[in-house]
């Protein structure tokens, strides 16, 4: 059927929650200040494990003025969409787009480490992506191996703990082995936890949790009627972190859908749809998304008091 192609992107109205990232130097900062709480140059922000720690002056400077330290999300999830389009716009092969995407990811990891975010989950490869052309899939698998090897030392210095979630049985043997090595090497790190979702989907996560649960019901460990939300949560692959539920999900490239990512865990997550393609996603876009997040009221089904 014919699709209507209207120049909707030129319309400026407040209807859309299409999140339009603006350069950090422009209106967003001023506008947000008028709606946001007064900017306090706190020297206090949340450290790890829920404690409040005193920051040094240098750490204070790292957090932009627009952001309130006490309202920073603990867990940020990202759908890194747009690598292919970025490459096509520049008449480059898709692999160049994925490589540029890796640079954007390392920059984001750096920012998360500096700004005290506890967990960063990135959607690197979904179960549906196995349907892509074999060449692209092979290139992506090689890229994952290469990046994990190249970045491991830097991530160790940054005290990043790496966890890889997803159906690892489908991954190449070398990547499976590397995954185990990387997780073992970084398991004692106490800084940012980087969760990389490879060969993962939200529905796969729930099905694999159910397989574990049904084994327990078969063995009589648990009765079907005793299955609760907590029981399922324990079996999900995000049980590798203390903060399994993202506070903020960012999807780049303007697409407004979840695409089978972290289904259960996104129940109350604030969603931000950013128009930038993933390789172009930078500090300014991230600050804008965090500003937007900090102004939202999260009620979890209740009422404002």
């Amino acid at each position, binding site marked *: 059927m014919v699709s209507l192609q209207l120049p*909707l992107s030129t319309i400026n*109205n407040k209807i859309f929650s299409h999140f339009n990232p603006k350069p950090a130097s422009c209106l967003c900062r001023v506008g947000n200040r008028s709606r946001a709480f007064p900017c306090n140059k706190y020297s206090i922000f949340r450290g790890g494990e829920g404690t409040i720690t005193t920051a040094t002056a240098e750490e204070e400077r790292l957090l932009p003025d627009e952001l309130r330290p006490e309202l920073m999300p603990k867990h940020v999830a990202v759908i890194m969409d747009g690598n292919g389009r970025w490459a096509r716009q520049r008449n480059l092969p898709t692999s160049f787009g994925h490589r540029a995407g890796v640079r954007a990811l390392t920059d984001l990891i750096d920012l998360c480490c500096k700004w005290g975010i506890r967990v960063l989950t990135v959607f690197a490869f979904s179960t549906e992506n196995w349907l892509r052309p074999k060449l692209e899939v092979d290139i992506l698998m090689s890229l994952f191996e290469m990046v994990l090897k190249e970045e491991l030392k830097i991530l160790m210095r940054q005290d990043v703990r790496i966890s890889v979630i997803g159906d690892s049985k489908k991954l190449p043997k070398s990547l499976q082995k590397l995954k185990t090595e990387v997780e073992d090497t970084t398991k004692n790190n106490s800084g940012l936890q980087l969760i990389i979702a490879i060969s993962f989907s939200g*529905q796969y996560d729930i099905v694999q949790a*159910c397989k574990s649960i049904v084994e327990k019901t078969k063995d009589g460990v648990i009765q079907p009627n005793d299955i609760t939300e907590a029981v399922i949560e324990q079996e999900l692959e995000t049980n590798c972190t203390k903060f399994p539920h993202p506070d903020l999900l960012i999807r780049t490239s303007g697409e407004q859908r979840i*695409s*089978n990512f972290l289904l259960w865990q*996104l*129940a109350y997550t604030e*969603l931000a749809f950013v128009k930038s393609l993933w390789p172009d996603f930078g500090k300014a876009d991230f600050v804008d998304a965090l500003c937007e997040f900090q102004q939202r009221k999260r009620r979890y089904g*209740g009422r404002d008091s």
Partner: protein
Amino acid sequence: MFDFLFLVFSSLRDLGMENGNGGNLQQLFQRLVAVIYDILQRLFFMVLSVGPIPNHIAFIMDGNRRYARTRKLGPGAGHKAGFSSLIRVLECCYKMGVKYVTVYAFSIDNFKRDPCEVQSIMDLMLEKIDELLREESIVNNHGIRINFFGDLKLLSKPVRMAAEKAMAETAKNTNVVLSVCVAYTSTNEIVHAVQESCKEKLARAQVISDVNAEIRNSFGGYTKPLEEEYSITLEDLERHIYSAEIPDPDILIRTSGETRLSNFLLWQTTFCYLHVLDALWPDISPWWLGWVILHYQRAKPYIDKNKAL
């Protein structure tokens, strides 16, 4: 430009609906305005029908209380206005050819609210279910089938019985299916699906075990239960979610500007187009709905091409 047009159309609608105490001339003018409004709406729907119309739209009906607060209305008035808005939206979906509509009426988390507010919502639900089942209501005029999804055991007996009655009496309707999520959260729905799947697997495993025992006793042969019988698959879970017979939503619309799913249809919206409107739910009109559908039509080719990220 579009803000101005929406304002004009909303004013036309309100003018056409006013009950004037003036003379015949004023009534004639109001009828004329109503006719023009209706024609413009039909033209708009004709334009929309050039592109793909979504088969299933889901709504998170947020903003009723804020609507009442901004207009200084009494308690419960916001939710009543929200119900009127639901009827308008249903009418609009029927005219556009949308087959399935799902709405998030009351979450399990909403039981945490003030007991008076919860009770008033339950009373409103009873009243409106009764209204919908009357002969002259939109449900019978347009052949709307009503489903209630959720943990209905959490509802009081009168509300639960009214819901069951509505489902039974509208079961034969086939034009539009309205699914109302009450005492619902998606995680609760998934827990229910897991429980039912486990019970089903255990029951089948027991049957196989009994059959194997018979074989061993009768023929002295050995059989081993298949491990696959205990394994749960995606299809097993999908058979047990509340909306098993209904296709997944094509669009999920949340009103009042909040950008989150609030534990609604997490399983079913994996590839759904999400859209947030700043307007409050009682302010939703066919124009807003059409606007979202235009966006959906623009995004659909890419969604279909790249269903996997």
